[in-house]
């Protein structure tokens, strides 16, 4: 197998320009930007809080979709052929905030420190926080964050997480709320570990972001699909999840996303017993700042201008941290165009 060729635009390292760029986040956006910049002769260092580069492609998305080796070899090629230096297990941050996957980092570097030490900085830190649902009982034991669960499973396969950390799901009833890519992948992994999985979604399969094609594959695997229901509260016993109380919904007029809005039907409550619950209802951007250092919008996404530059001169941003949850291809596109801007800016043409 060959690796992803992030430096697909050139064959070998050109004459060095002497400019140094720091990239924060080694997901598809960061790695592709690195590939473009090294092809333009810039020197690139990449900081990431995880033990190795790859981002969600490596630590979350199941192996049957994206082979680990494909990502690993790609990252290695940047290091070996283009002298990219990785700084793994290094969280970059101005201010403080707890994010998913934080148990893996060993040191913290300030974003401002990078700005001072490099000619340009690119932020590509993605969406590493999970949206909370805010219903009674949502903090009971047995409620798992989808990212955390997927990190444990994949991290264990990669040799970073001890087996005891992965919950023993064999024969257990796992309820998953949501119908996006995260919900679907969580369902795949739990079903693979022998759990009895049920997905609860407030709209119908037609509106599900992950699509009927993927969901039907799961159903053929034995995963139960329960549509037009919304969680009302989690019922516990001795501090642990015992069941979920749901309300039936009906679909009303289309909302701002163009999909019909689910309206809970009063008095339709019913309960489903579960051993574990996963709320996969959305993820939130995690810029390497908490506070005023650079501008973010009301959903925590980094604000950039047409040049992909943030409110701080010389700091650029790309990928899911700017756009919210998208896909690998969109992150790659954003990384590429941000890199084009960085190169022009470094050459004084922008």
């Amino acid at each position, binding site marked *: 197998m060959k690796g992803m060729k992030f430096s*697909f635009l050139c064959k070998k390292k050109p004459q060095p320009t002497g400019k140094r760029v720091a990239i924060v986040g080694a997901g598809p956006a960061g790695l592709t930007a690195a590939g473009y910049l090294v092809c333009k002769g810039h020197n690139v260092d990449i900081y990431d809080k995880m033990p190795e580069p790859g981002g969600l492609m490596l630590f979350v998305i199941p192996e*049957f979709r994206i082979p680990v080796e*494909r990502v690993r070899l790609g990252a290695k090629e940047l290091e070996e052929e283009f002298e990219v230096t990785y700084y793994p297990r290094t969280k970059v941050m101005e201010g403080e905030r707890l994010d998913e996957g934080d148990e893996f980092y060993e040191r913290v570097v300030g974003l401002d420190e990078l700005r001072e030490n490099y000619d340009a900085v690119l932020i590509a830190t993605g969406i590493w926080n999970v949206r909370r649902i805010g219903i009674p009982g949502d903090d009971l034991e047995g409620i798992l964050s989808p990212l955390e669960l997927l990190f444990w499973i994949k991290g264990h396969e990669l040799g970073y997480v001890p087996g005891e950390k992965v919950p023993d799901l064999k024969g257990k009833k796992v309820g998953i709320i949501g119908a996006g890519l995260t919900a679907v992948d969580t369902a795949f992994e739990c079903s693979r570990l022998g759990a009895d999985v049920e997905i609860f979604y407030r709209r119908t399969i037609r509106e599900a972001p992950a699509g009927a094609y993927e969901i039907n594959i799961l159903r053929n695997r034995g995963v139960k699909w329960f549509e037009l229901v919304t969680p009302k509260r989690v019922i516990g016993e001795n501090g642990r999840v015992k069941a979920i109380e749901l309300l039936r919904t009906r679909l009303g007029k289309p909302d701002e996303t163009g999909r019909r809005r689910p309206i809970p039907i009063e008095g339709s409550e019913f309960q489903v017993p579960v051993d574990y619950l996963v709320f996969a209802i959305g993820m939130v951007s995690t810029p390497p700042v908490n506070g005023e250092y650079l501008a973010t919008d009301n959903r925590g996404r980094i604000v950039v201008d047409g040049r992909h530059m943030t409110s701080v001169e010389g700091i650029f941003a790309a990928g899911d941290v700017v756009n919210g949850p998208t896909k690998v*291809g969109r992150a790659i596109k954003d990384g590429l165009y941000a890199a084009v801007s960085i190169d022009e800016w470094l050459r004084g043409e922008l």
Partner: protein
Amino acid sequence: MERKYLYLDYLTCIGCETCETVCDFIHGGNPHIRIYVTENKQYLPINCKHCDDAPCLRVCPTNAIYRDEDGAVRIAENRCIGCLACLQVCPYGVPFYSLKVKAITKCDMCAERREEGLEPACAEMCPAEAIQYGPLEMVLELVNERRAKNIPEHRREITKEELRKSVSSGYVLL
């Protein structure tokens, strides 16, 4: 030179849009591989299959369509009269008339890149390894190797002959 194949395996494609993105990037915003989404949200990137017995090549009245030394089906823009006969016969609706170029444009298996010793960008960047590029036997081997890693629900039993036909003639396996 040995005939090369550019094969996209729909069973391992995850619909991430990377292929269209990089193709778009190197072709100034006009990608030659385009993702179509079905009603049930299956993502299908469609590109030229560079068919062994290419109907477009056979039908072109001015012989503007030819096969280059790597096996890519190419357009000689200066000979194209824009009659769209190729579009009529292509099973995938690949040939595209460009008002800018005033000729048919389509995937040329990254001809410029191949001249520089690089490979087609979509195959180099697809994270799922769903696009393979190379001589027939190598492509067949890589596709089988990749498919073996898939989960049973994404797998379909296919005969060697079926796969060979798919790689060489563009006949799509879903």
